[in-house]
Each structure stands twice: as structure tokens, then as C-alpha cells.
């Protein structure tokens, strides 16, 4: 009997007007509070934002921001056994030329004096050099978050847009691994196969076809 009565009691309590009013009060306060705090949050965005308006090459930690809360840094910085990236001996290290004597020119333009051999065919309508290359530290790249990374970790940069390929590369489906299937292996970097400035594969000359059975004597 008691068990049958208690839900009834609870039911009647829930719809008691006085109790309902009492229960609703904190909720109402919370709602009003959130409405009031909304303009305050907007005002915070209106303030100068170092990430979006200032130089984009500083890591969040240096900007006083917490590390990326959604993706974290754990897996990303784990590192993969990759060989050295194929940097051109002619230009590397970049800081040989791009140093204090040459302040970075951030205006988007066609390069006429140097690096004329690089023809960008990689979303060229929307991107240019300094979207990937770091203007402050020329021997590094930077992610969209502003974190600078070395050329050894360039897969993190590529993975920002090519998420499915990055996911597959990490599990060994995309790209190529060499070495031991049950032990130490080398992962090729994205840039070992794809030219980052023009990533589409170039056609190859095929090797000799098999001999037709009728021409075997």
C-alpha cells in the first residue's frame, strides 16, 4: 500500500502550485542570468583577439590560452617514425635568407624574384605561402591554431584539411609503410609522395608489359 501511495503523493506534490513556484525560481534565475551574461560574452569577442587578428604564429600557451580542449595534444604530438622530409638542399634552411635582414612581407602576391619554380596548385584560390609556412620562424610551419611545428611533423598540417586521409594514414591505410610488418616500420610523410605545392600525382611511364603467349617460342 505504501509503495502504491508514494508515487501518488509525489505526483500531487509536483503539481502543488506553491511548490512548483518554489521549484521554478532557481530555474528562472538561471535563465535570466544566462540572458544577461550573453551580451557580456559578445563584448568579450569584440575585444582585440590575438588569435584572429594578430600574428598567427604564436602557440596558444604563449597567448595565455588553454591548449585545444577538443582535440587535445596527446595523440597529435605522439610522433610517428617518419624519415627526414625531402627538403631541397638549394633552399634549406630557409632562415639563411629569411632572417632579420628580410622582414616578412605578409601581402598576398605572386612571387616574381625568388621561388619562381613553385607553381601553387593546391587550393591556390584560397591559400598562399604563409598559410602553411611560418612568417616569424621560417624553418617551421604553423597550424591553423597558430602552433608552430617542424617540417618532420608536416602530417599534422596536412591533416587539418585532409582529415579522412590523415585518419587513414595513422592506421596505415593511406600512404606507404616500409620495414617490418610485425615490428619497426617507417611511415612515409605526405610530402614524400605528394608535392605539397601541387599534390596531385603525376602520370608515370609503365614498365614493360608481359609477353603475349603467342609470341613465346
Amino acid at each position: 500500500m505504501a509503495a502504491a501511495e508514494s508515487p501518488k503523493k509525489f505526483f500531487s506534490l509536483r503539481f502543488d502550485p506553491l511548490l512548483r513556484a518554489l521549484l521554478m525560481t532557481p530555474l528562472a534565475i538561471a535563465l535570466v542570468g544566462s540572458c544577461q551574461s550573453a551580451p557580456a560574452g559578445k563584448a568579450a569577442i569584440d575585444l582585440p583577439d590575438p588569435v584572429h587578428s594578430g600574428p598567427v604564429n604564436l602557440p596558444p600557451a604563449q597567448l595565455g590560452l588553454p591548449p585545444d580542449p577538443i582535440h587535445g595534444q596527446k595523440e597529435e604530438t605522439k610522433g610517428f617514425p617518419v624519415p627526414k622530409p625531402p627538403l631541397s638542399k638549394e633552399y634549406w634552411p630557409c632562415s639563411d635568407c629569411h632572417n632579420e635582414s628580410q622582414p616578412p612581407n605578409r601581402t598576398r602576391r605572386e612571387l616574381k624574384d625568388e621561388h619562381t619554380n613553385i607553381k601553387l596548385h593546391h587550393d591556390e584560390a584560397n591559400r598562399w605561402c604563409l598559410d602553411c609556412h611560418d612568417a616569424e620562424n621560417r624553418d617551421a610551419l604553423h597550424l591553423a591554431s597558430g602552433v608552430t611545428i617542424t617540417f618532420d611533423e608536416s602530417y599534422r598540417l596536412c591533416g587539418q584539411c585532409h582529415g579522412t586521409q590523415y585518419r587513414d594514414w595513422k592506421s596505415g591505410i593511406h600512404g606507404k609503410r616500409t620495414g617490418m610488418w610485425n615490428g619497426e616500420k617507417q611511415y612515409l610523410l605526405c610530402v614524400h609522395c605528394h608535392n605539397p605545392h601541387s599534390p596531385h600525382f603525376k602520370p608515370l611511364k609503365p614498365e614493360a608489359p608481359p609477353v603475349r603467349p603467342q609470341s613465346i617460342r
Partner: protein
Amino acid sequence: MLTENTEIDSSDAPSGEVAETPEQKLSMSRRNFMKHSAIVAGAATAAACSTEELEKFTQKRLRELSQPELQALIKRMEADYKKKFKKDVDVRATPAAEGVKFGYALDLSRCIGCRRCVHACVKENNQSRPTPEGPHNNPIQWIKVLEMEKEKGIDLTDSNAYYNPEEVPREGHFYMPVQCQQCENPPCVKVCPVQATWKEPDGIVVIDYEWCIGCRYCMVACPYGARRFNWAEPNLPADQVNTNTHILGNRPRPKGVVEKCTFCIQRTRAGRYPACVEICPVGARKFGNMLDPKSEIRAVLESKRVFILKEDLNTQPKFFYFFGI
């Protein structure tokens, strides 16, 4: 069994006591004569050929050999190769590892049909090279790359293995390399009349070249056309011999035996990737242990839509195709 024999012997005994007719006496003596002459002839043949040849003639199948017998055989093979190629050929008999089942996956959306895998395989596995000028041309390639039209899809009958354009991939075409599918239920093994081919514990279908009689039943039974026959003495120039070999894999073959892809048994049983995986310029080929949840092959099987060739034949290949994009 023993009691049965003794019973038969005891029942035979009285019949032996029955007096023989002259005809019977004559036939017995003829039989004895035949028996003796056969022994003499056999002994004469044995005396005529060297002990080495006799050893080869009385060679047991590889699967029946004890460890010392196997080692002796390997030594004999290495000596033969030394004589033939004037260099040390290392023949190994590494057994299958525990808890390993090899699987292979090929990304058809990446393959560009460049045939780098075909020629890397020829070099790695000591296949017979073409000899257009010689009298016995016996070119062998274990991998066949089929060119197909994108519009028609996977159509084996209309595919072309002899394409040779200036550049690949050709517009509107895609490429499908076919090699031994290492079936779980291999029809080639079923038809071999002498059991010279079998499936190893790690899933590789292998051939005992010493025991193969060259009847080519297996070639007919294979639905993938993966087996090749040495119609003539293989043309393997001494300077092109890969000296790292396996007794069931890439050791130089004699004339008159069947051969095929073994997932580069000499490499994979030593933990390495097959030669075709390592050469592929577009990374279309994936290899690994299907029993290891962290292997690449498992990643493919778990996250991609894979398919196998001629699924309806219930051969259960361990060679999977998929479209990675």
C-alpha cells in the same frame, strides 16, 4: 591386425603344402627369375648413377622430412646452386610463426597500373626472364595487372593485361593487379594428384618443387589464373639471382614445375613486407597479420568496404580489394 595376419598365415599354410603341378613350378621359377633380374637391373642402374642422383630419386616429399633430413637437403640444394650460379644461395626453411595469418589488401582507387610491382616481384622471386633470341623463351611474371574501363567497372573478360601507353593511368581506366589470392579453401590444393601443393599454417599456399610432377591440374583449377608453369629451363642469369631464398618460395626452380606468388615467403616469414608492397609508388598495397588487431590489414578490413574476387566460388581468398577514397 597382428592376430588377423597370423590367422591368414595359418590358413595359407595348408595350401602351401599341396603338391605343385609342373605348370605351377614353371610359373614360380619364371616369377623368381623376373624378381632376380629386376634386382640386378636396379642394382646396375644404382651403380651407374651417382649417389647424388639416387638421393634425388629417393627424395621424400618436403612435408615428411625430419629436421636433419631437411638440413641435408638444403645443403645439397645450396651446393647445386653454387655449382650452377657460381655464388652462395641461401636457402631457408623458416616455418610459419604461431598466431599469424597473412592477409593482403589492394586499394584500387590508388593503383595507377605502373607495373613496378610486377617487375619487383620478378627480381625478388627469381622468376624466369624473357629470352627473345633464345630457343626456349619462358618468361614468367606472378603478378598480372589488368586494365579496365571505368564505365564498365570490374569486368575481367574485357580487361587488358598488355596495355603499354606512354603514361599511366590512362583517361577513363583503372587497374587491377591480380596474383595468387592465397585462398583459405584453395581449389589448386584440392586437385593436386601428388599433394605437392598445400596451405601453410600462416595461410600461404606453397608448392614443393621437388615433388611437383608438372601435370598443371592446379593451373586449371585456379579461378584467378595465378599459377605459372616452367615450360622450359628458367632463364635466370647468375648476376640477377636473389640469393635470399626460401625452400617453398623463391629458390630457383627447375623446368617442368608450377610456381606462383607466395606473399614473398622468404621476406614475410622474416618479418619484412613483400617486395610489391615496398615498391608500390602510390602505397596501394597493404599487408599484415590478420590476427593482430593493430595491423594495417585489420584497419582496412574494419574500416573499408573490401571485396574479394569471385566470391561465389567459396575459395575464400585472403587477398582483398578496396576503394580507399
